[in-house]
């Protein structure tokens, strides 16, 4: 879904319709960009605009140079005054943040871009490129991302396809279902998810459900790995007994939760998990019927 009303010249005025339906009009290609969402920060940098970033939100940490930029607060509670003090000529944020209206009323150009699903990543990338005044840069990046996705898919051995996976994002337990970004990546790699899409992207589950679903592979953050195995009744899970647990460091968990230019890397993390802990399809139960 390429944006239509775009003036291609880098030096000329730019008009883009953001995901909130607002038309963002810029006089020239922005040189002082503030990004308040990690995936948008990564998109700007992937498109070569890292030097133009003046400040980000608290959670943006990739690439490394971004860590040195001033941090303006979280996703819900960014510091309006400090944002204004940065004199940005473009502010990028998620529509869920309530700051858009406030910042616009203060005269700042704001673009709300929403990337929570795999299908939205391309569109957001193209809009960010258009906003930066370099619409053609998106194409090259997208090609790269597709290639990385293909490579990840190929890295998954045949025997690992159809593996029933349980991905835990928080120890309540909150799981990632089929309809989450992680779930979509797993589907791309040919793996199954024990948590159906009908429960929403990140449902809080009854732990009994997971035990009964008997996943063949568990993906969890490294911090929670030990307590997961000690949960009442979980020691009986085949995946726990055979050590088929993929404990991911925080950096990998970050990649998995940011739909954006690192989609290939995210897919590769999951592919590696599947390959290292794969089980012959004949032994593993398929994603259970509901």
């Amino acid at each position, binding site marked *: 879904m390429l944006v239509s009303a775009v003036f291609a010249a880098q030096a000329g005025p730019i008009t883009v319709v953001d995901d909130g339906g607002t038309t963002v009009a810029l006089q020239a290609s922005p040189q002082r960009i503030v990004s308040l969402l990690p995936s948008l920060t990564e998109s700007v940098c992937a498109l070569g605009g890292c030097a133009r970033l003046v400040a980000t939100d608290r959670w943006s940490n990739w690439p490394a140079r971004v860590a040195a930029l001033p941090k303006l607060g979280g996703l819900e509670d960014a510091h309006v005054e400090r944002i204004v003090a940065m004199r940005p000529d473009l502010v990028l944020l998620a529509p869920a943040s309530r700051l858009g209206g406030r910042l616009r009323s203060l005269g700042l150009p704001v673009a709300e871009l929403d990337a929570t699903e795999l299908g939205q990543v391309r569109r957001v990338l193209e809009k960010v490129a258009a906003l930066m005044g370099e619409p053609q840069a998106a194409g090259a990046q997208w090609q790269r991302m597709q290639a990385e996705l293909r490579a990840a898919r190929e890295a998954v051995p045949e025997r690992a396809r159809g593996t029933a996976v349980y991905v835990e994002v928080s120890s*309540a337990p909150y799981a990632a279902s089929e309809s989450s970004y992680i779930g979509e990546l797993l589907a791309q790699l040919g793996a199954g998810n024990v948590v159906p899409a009908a429960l929403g992207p990140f449902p*809080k589950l009854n*732990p009994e459900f997971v035990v009964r679903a008997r996943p063949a592979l568990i993906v969890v953050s490294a*911090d929670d790995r*030990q*307590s997961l195995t000690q*949960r*009442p*009744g979980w020691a009986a899970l085949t995946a726990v007994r055979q050590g088929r647990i993929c404990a991911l460091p925080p950096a990998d968990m970050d990649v998995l939760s940011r739909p954006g230019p690192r989609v290939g890397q995210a897919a590769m993390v999951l592919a590696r998990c599947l390959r290292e802990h794969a089980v012959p399809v004949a032994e593993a139960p398929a994603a259970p019927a509901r």
Partner: protein
Amino acid sequence: MLSALVVVLALVLCTWGLGMGADGWQAPWQAWVDPGQRAILLDIRAPRTLGAFLVGALLGLGGAVAQGLFRNPLAEPHLLGSASGAGLIMALAWSVGGAWGGGLLARLGLTVLAFVGAVGGVVLTLLLARGAAHTLRLLLAGVVVGVVLGALTQWLMLWSAEAWRAMQAFMLGNTALLGWDACALLGAMWLLTLPLALAMSRVLDALALGEDTTRSLGVPLGLARGVLVAVLAATTAAAVAQAGLVAFVGLVAPHLVRGWGAGRHRVRLWAASAMGGALMLVSDVLARSLLPPQELPVGVLTAVLGGVYLLVLLHRRPT
């Protein structure tokens, strides 16, 4: 007659709890036959049902002690800084030490830390109120301490990713991961604090007549208060360390049994404890049963159940 009713009720609740699984209710005796299901019944459902009851029993007891000690119907573990103190210490523990694992030793360690935090919260409240002499001042100080410690906890969660992740379920209460070791800890604490509180029931009764009258009856008020505060901190710490912050049970349970004419603490402490346990158990089972296989945070249900029941009671009473 009443005891028979209580026993029947207990059996019904247990059966309901043991049968409620991720797909809805199934009679426990049917589940027993299948070995896979039996394991789930014994390893997951039984301990969490019992654990939920014990958490509620501890909170109900703490609430009754707090209300008797401070002679105020609004007193409860959350309002006196003990729960927020325990929560803050646990957030600190998680941010410094990362995940603690779920074994018995880890749970014990967290409980001890939570006790330190709970005592710290109450002591802070007492310092701020310059002693427990003035009930109003004490409760105001307790609210301030609770809010400030809660804010510090939230701030800590922003700073530390480990604390943030670990506290997600904690903030609204979580009974989903209570196993037999948690039950052992909770049970031990209950068996320790309940007799201790009962031994103080005369003092709690006397306090209803005023502090001067209590002193004139020969009660060493400073020492007695110390013991009661320790009981309050211990019950809160154990409950918070295992199940997170469950508000409202400690406040509501003593009120729900007030209507049973239990003015004497000898009866009131037992009754509030049992009512708290029942409230928590029902909330836990409902949390699992409303949207299977998803679970609601149990703290939401205790607030709704307790609040609605309290409103009904208030509506019916003439005063």
